[in-house]
C-alpha cells in the first residue's frame, strides 16, 4: 500500500517536532546545570575535599613541610585541578560546546565515581560508560518489562472479560499489593531468602559485570553467568511490574467489554477466545501499544534503589552518581540517550497509531 503523501508529511513534521524537543531538553538541562552553578559548586567542593585530604596528609607527616610550603603545594594543585575540571572558564564556555558535542556523544570522560559504576578504570569516555551500563539495565529492567507484557497482554483482557470472578479479584489484590510494596524491599527480601538462607541465588550481583565482559572470549560461560546472576533480579522485577501491567490492561479492556459489539458477540455465542482476541484485544491495541512502547523506552533509565540493593551497576545508578558528583558530561549524555530513546519510541508510536487506527486524524 503506497504511503499517503499527507501521512508522510505529518510523520516528517512529528519527527521534526520531536527532534526540536530533544534538542531543547538537552539544552535546557545544560543551562540548568550552568545557571544554577550546580556543577561548579560540586566540582569546587570535590577539589577542596581533595585538597583538604592532601593538606592533612602533608601536615600529619612526622616531619611536615612548613605552612608556607604547604600553602604553595595546595595552591598549585588547586590550579591544576580547576583547569582539569574546566573551572577556570565561565559555565557557558564550558557547557555550551559540551552540549553541541552531546549530540555526537563526543563527551570527553566521566568522573571517577561514574567510572566506578561502569566498573572501568579511568579515564572512561561518557559513551563507553553508557555503552557498558545500558545492557545491564536492559537485561534486568527491560527483560522484566517484556516478561510482564508477555503475561499481561493476553491475561489482562481475559480477566476484564471475566470481571468479578475470583481470578479478577485475585489479580486486583495482587496489583494493589505490588503497587504498595516497593520493589527494592522485595529485592531485599528475595536476596535474604533465596541468597543467604536457601542459597539458590547469589548474594552479590556485581560479579555479573565479569560475565558481561566475557561474551567475546567465552560466550557460553558468559550466558551461564549472566543467567545465574540475572534470574533473581528479573523475577523480582517482573513480579513487581506484572501487577501494574495486568491492572492497566484490564482497566483499558474493561471499557470495551461492556460495549455493545462485545455483548452482541457474546450473545451470538462466539467462543471466549475469539471474543477476547478479536473484539477486545484488537480494539484496545492502540492504548496498549502506547503502554508497551513507552514502557520499553523508559525501562532503560533503570531503577536507582533497586539497582543499589542488588548492587547492580545499571543506568539508574549511573544517573544518580552523575548527579551526585556533578558530572555534567555524563548527565548530558544520559539525558540525551534516554530522551532520544523516548522520542524514537514516541515517533514509532505516532506511526503505529496511523497503522493501527485509521480513524486517527493527521
Amino acid at each position, binding site marked *: 500500500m503506497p504511503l499517503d503523501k499527507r501521512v508522510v508529511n505529518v510523520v516528517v513534521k512529528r519527527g521534526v517536532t520531536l527532534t526540536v524537543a530533544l534538542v531543547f531538553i538537552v539544552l535546557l538541562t545544560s543551562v540548568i546545570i550552568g545557571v544554577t552553578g550546580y556543577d561548579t559548586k560540586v566540582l569546587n567542593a570535590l577539589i577542596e575535599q581533595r585538597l583538604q585530604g592532601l593538606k592533612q596528609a602533608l*601536615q600529619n607527616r612526622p616531619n611536615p613541610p612548613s605552612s608556607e610550603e604547604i600553602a604553595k603545594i595546595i595552591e598549585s594543585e588547586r590550579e*591544576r585541578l580547576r583547569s582539569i575540571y574546566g573551572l577556570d572558564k565561565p559555565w557557558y564556555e564550558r557547557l555550551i560546546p559540551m552540549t553541541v558535542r552531546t549530540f555526537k556523544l563526543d563527551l570527553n570522560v566521566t568522573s*571517577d565515581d561514574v567510572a566506578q559504576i561502569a566498573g572501568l*578504570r*579511568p579515564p572512561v569516555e561518557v559513551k563507553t560508560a553508557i555503552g557498558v551500563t545500558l545492557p545491564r539495565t536492559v537485561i534486568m529492567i527491560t527483560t522484566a518489562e517484556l516478561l510482564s507484557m508477555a503475561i499481561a497482554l493476553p491475561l489482562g483482557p481475559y480477566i476484564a472479560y471475566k470481571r468479578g470472578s475470583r481470578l479478577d479479584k485475585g489479580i486486583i489484590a495482587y496489583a494493589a499489593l505490588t503497587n504498595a510494596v516497593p520493589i527494592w524491599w522485595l529485592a531485599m527480601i528475595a536476596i535474604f531468602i533465596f541468597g543467604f538462607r536457601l542459597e539458590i541465588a547469589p548474594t552479590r550481583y556485581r560479579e555479573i559485570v565479569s560475565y558481561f565482559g566475557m561474551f567475546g572470549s567465552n560466550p557460553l560461560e558468559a550466558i551461564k553467568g549472566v543467567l545465574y546472576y540475572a534470574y533473581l533480579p528479573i523475577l523480582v522485577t517482573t513480579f513487581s511490574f506484572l501487577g501494574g501491567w495486568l491492572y492497566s490492561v484490564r482497566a483499558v479492556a474493561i471499557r470495551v467489554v461492556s460495549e455493545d459489539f462485545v455483548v452482541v458477540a457474546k450473545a451470538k455465542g462466539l467462543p471466549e477466545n475469539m471474543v477476547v482476541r478479536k473484539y477486545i484485544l484488537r480494539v484496545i491495541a492502540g492504548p496498549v501499544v502506547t503502554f508497551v512502547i513507552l514502557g520499553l523506552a523508559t525501562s532503560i533509565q533503570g531503577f536507582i534503589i533497586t539497582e543499589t540493593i542488588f548492587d547492580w551497576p545499571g543506568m539508574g545508578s549511573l544517573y544518580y552518581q552523575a548527579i551526585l558528583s556533578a558530572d555534567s558530561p555524563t548527565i548530558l549524555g544520559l539525558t540525551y540517550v534516554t530522551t532520544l530513546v523516548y522520542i524514537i519510541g514516541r515517533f514509532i508510536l505516532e506511526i503505529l497509531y496511523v497503522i493501527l487506527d485509521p480513524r486517527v486524524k493527521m
Partner: protein
Amino acid sequence: MDKYRILTAVLLTALMILPVALTPSIAFAQEVGPATNKITWSRFTLDEIAEAFRTDKVDVYLFGLDPDVAQEMAQIPGIKLYTAPAGLNDFGLNPAPVQIVEVNQVFTSKEDAAAFFGVDPVVIRYVEPMEEEGKTTVEFCAMQADLPAGTTIVWESDKLNLNPFCFRDIRFAMNYVIDRERIVKEVYKGFAIPKYTFYGPDDPVYTELIDVVAEFRFTYQPQLAKSIVNDVMTRAGAQLQGGTWYYMGKPVSITAIIRVEDQRFELGHIFAQELKNLGFLVNIQELTFFEAILKVYFTDPKDFEWGFYTEGWGKGAIDKWDAGNLAQFGATWLGWAPGWGEADYWNYKPEVVDEEGNNVDFYSKATQLMQNITSKEQWIDYLRKGTRLGTLEAIRIWVVATLDSFPAKEDLRGVTVDMGAGLRSLFNCRGWSIPGTDTVRVGHLWTWTTRSVWNVFGGFNDVYSVDPARCTFDPFAWFHPFNGRPIEFRATFDSIETAGPEGKLPVPSDAIWWDAENDAWVPASQLGRTEATSKVVLDLSKFFGSKWHHGVEITWADLLMYWGEWIDITYDPEKSVIESSIAEPTRPILDTFVAIRPLVDENKLEVYINYWHFDEAYIGLNAILATVDIPAELVALHDYVAFVTKERALSDTRSKDEGIPQLSLVLPDDAQLAKEKFQGDLGANGYNLYRPFFTLPDGTVLMTQDEWNARARAVVSWVDQYGLAWISQGPFMLTFFDKDAQKLELTAFRDPTYPFGPADWVFGEPQPTTITQVSVPLVEPGRPAQIIVSATGIAPLHVKWLLRDPLTGQIVAKGEAEPTATGFLIFLDSALTEKLAEYAVYELAVIAYSEVIALPAESVQPLRTTAAITKEFEQLRGALEEVSKATAEQLTQVQQQFQQQVSQLQQQFQQQIQELQSALGGQLANALQGLSNTLATTTQDLSNTLATTIQQLSTTLDTSLKDLGDRLDKSIGDLSSKVDTLSSTVDQLQSQVSTLSDTADAARSVAEEAKNAADSAASSARIAMILGVLNLIILLAIAALIFRSS
C-alpha cells in the same frame, strides 16, 4: 612373622605420620610466613554484612560499622566486635565580628579601646594596633551605631547586628550545653568517647595532658551557660524579650548548618535546641556534604552564611608524639580556623594569651614544626600550654571521638587490635587463622574502586588498595599498634646518632646521593652535602638475601633503584614537572635527606638527615626514605611506562590531565603491558637504561645483565601464572585479583628466606588499663584522708588524680598517686582538706594509664565531705583544759588564802592567849596554853583536812576533766570509726548499686546517716561538756561552803 613385623612397622609409621598430616595448622605454626594459608577478600555492603555473618559467608569485616549496625552485630552469637577510634565530631563556631573600624589612635588593649568608644570591653573582639601608622583596627561583636569622631568604618555586616559566637565567653559557655555522656549513650549507642577538647583518651599523647584536659571536663550545666550568656549579652547591650535576645531591634540569630548523612544530624538538632533555650533564634539548614562545605569552608566567615557547623574529622594513624591536633583544631596558623587562611577572607586571630605573653599559635608552631624545641620536657610543656590556650579559644566545641567497630568471628585467632586502625592494622593478616580451615575470608566495602591504584609512586590512596597490599609487604619500620611509637620491622636501627637540634655531624666522603640532573649516584660532597643533623644506621640483614615473591633474591640494586627513582621523580627537571603532584608534596620530605652510605658487605645503610626529634625512634623512622616493596625491575617499569613511552600516568592528577590511565599492577591490562615490555624493549635494553640506578660512584655495578634478564623472565612468568604484576616481599603473595567480581586472593609466602613466623607480629588486644576500685572515704575538712585506687593493666602503670569543684569548675588539687602494696595511694593532707567546704561534694577524677598502651582508664568519683567534727572537738578539749587549769589555780589560791587566814587566826589566837596569860596568871595560862595547843592541833588538823579535801577536790576535778577528755576522745574515736564504717558502707553500696542514681541516693542516705551520727555525737559531746561544767560548779560550791564553814 616377617609379615607381622612389616605390618607393625607400617602401622607405627602411619601412626607417626597421620597426626602431622591431619593438623595443618600446627604444621603452619612451625613454618615461616603467616598463620593461615590463604586469605580471600570480597565485597560486602553494610546492609548485607550482618546476614553474611549469620549465614557464615565471612570471617572478618574490615569496614567500620555504623553504630546502628554495630549494635545489631553485637547481638549475633559467635561474633566479636573490635573497636578503635575512628573520627572526631565537633561544632565549629563562627567567631566573626559584625563591624570592623579603624581609629587614628594606637590602643594596645581592649579596655583602652572600649574607654575610647564608650562601650563595655566585652563587645570588642580584637584590637590590632598599627603603631607605625598611628592607627588601630578594632573588631566589634555587636554593631556600634554611634562611633566617636575620627573613626572610619572599614566594614560592617548587613546580615547581623550581633554575633553571639564572636564573644569568647559565650563560645566557651557552649561547652556546658552539650550533654556528652547522653550523646554517647543515645546517639552513638555507646560507640563513641566523650571529647572535651581536641585531645582525649583516644590520643597517645593524652597521658601528658591528662590534668590539662581534666580541667575542661565539662558537665551538662545549661543554667551556668545561661548565666554566662545573660551576663555577656546584657553587657553588650542586648535585651531579653519574651525569651529571645534582641539587639538594635532585631532578634539575635544563628545559622545552623547541620549535616544529614550521619549522627551529626541528631547532634546538630540537639545543639540548635539548646541555643533556642538560651534565647537565640536558630535558622536550621540541613545540608549534604557538598552543600555544607561550600557554605562553611568556601565563604568568608563575616558573610555569616553559617553560625555553627556540625564538623566531622577522620582520624589518621596513631602517633605517640602528635602535635597535629593542636595545630589543626586549636591554632590558627595552619589555616584550619575560620577564615581558613584565605587572604581575601576575614581570618580568626587568637584572643587568649598566657602569663608569658604567648598565644596558642606560638606553642602550636613550636610543637608541630619543632621550632626552638630542645628537649622532650619543653615539647610537652609547650603542648600542654598550647592545648590549654587552644581550648580556651573555643572556636570548636568538641563532642565525641567516634569508634569504628569491626566484627569478626569469635574463633578468629592472631588478632591485633590497633588503637588507630583497628582490625585494618598491618599486623593482622600475618597472625590471622581459624582453627579447622586454612583460609580466612575477609569482607570489605569494596575490593576495587576507581581510586584503588596499585602503583607505589602515585597510588595507594584508598583503604581498599592499602589494606590488602599491607599483607603483601613488610615495611622497614612501622608504628606500635598500642602507643603509636615507631618500631623496627624489616629493618633495624643499628645506631642513631644526632647532633641536633642545633649541631651538625660530618658526612663521610664516601657517602653518596642521587644526582637527578645527571642521572647517577655521585659522592654526596660533590653536591655540597657535607654535614647533617643526624645519622641513622639501618641494619637490613632481614631484607637483603631473602626473596621477592617471584623467587628472585633481594639485593642492594633493589634499594638503590627504588630510592633513586623517588629522588629522580622529585628533583629531575622533566619528571618533576610531568608528575608534579607527586614531586611537590614529596620535595619537602626529601629535602631533609642529605646522603646515604651503603655498607654493602655488612648489609647496613648509613642515612644522613637534617632531622631531629627528642625521641630517637622518630629520627630512625624519618631516615627511611621509603620501604622497598617492589623489585627493581618493576620500579623500572613504572619509570618506563610513565616517562619513556608515556602510556601510563603514575598520579591521578596526571591521568586526568593527559587522559591516560594510571598504572595499576593488579589490572590485567597493565599486567599484560608489563609482560609486553619485559618481553620487548625493557627486557632487551632495560638493563642499560636503568644501570645508573644501581651503579655506585666508584663504578661498582650491583646487578648484572644476566640478573636483569632473569628478573624480566620471572616477571613474565608471574604475569602468565596469576594475570597480575604485583610482586612484593611480605608474608602473602597476591595471586588473584578480579575488579569486576570485587574479589582478590592472598596466598601465604613460605620461602625459607622469609624472616618472620606466624606469631612474630601478633600483639593481641591491648590489655586495657582499668580502674577496678576507688575507695573514697567521707572526708572531714581539716583531717588527712587516704584514697586507695586499684588499677590493672600493663606495667608500668601510673595514676594521676585531680580534685575539682563541680560548681565552679575550679581544680582544687591535683597530683600523682603513689604506688603501694595495696594499690595507688592518693594522700590528701590536712592542709588540703582544710580548704574543702563542709557537707560538699567534689569530683575526684582518677586516671590510670600504662606507658605501653595509649588508652587510659578514667573514673570520676564523688568525694563527699562531712562536718569538721575533729576541729570542734579540739576546740572543746582546749576549752576544758583551760577550765581545768583555771580551776586548779583557783583551788590553789583558795588553799593558800585558807592557810594564810588560818595562820593569821593562829597568830591572833596566840597573841590573845599571851595576853590572857599575862592577865590571868600561870595556871590559867597553862590551861590556855593547853587550849591553845589543842586549838592549834585542831586548826592544823582542819587545815590538813582542808588541804586534803582541796587536794581530793582537785584530783576529782582533774579526774573528771580527764574522764571528760577521755570520753571526748572516745567519742571522736567512735565517731571516726563510725565514719570509717559508714565510708566502707558507702563503698560497698557504691560497688553494689549498679545505677548512678541508686548509688547517689544510697550515698546521700548514708551521708545523711553520717551527718546525723556526727550531729548526735557532737550533741553528746556538748551535753558532756555542760555536765562537766556543772560538776565543776558544784565542786566549787562545795569548796566555797567548806571555806565558809571553816
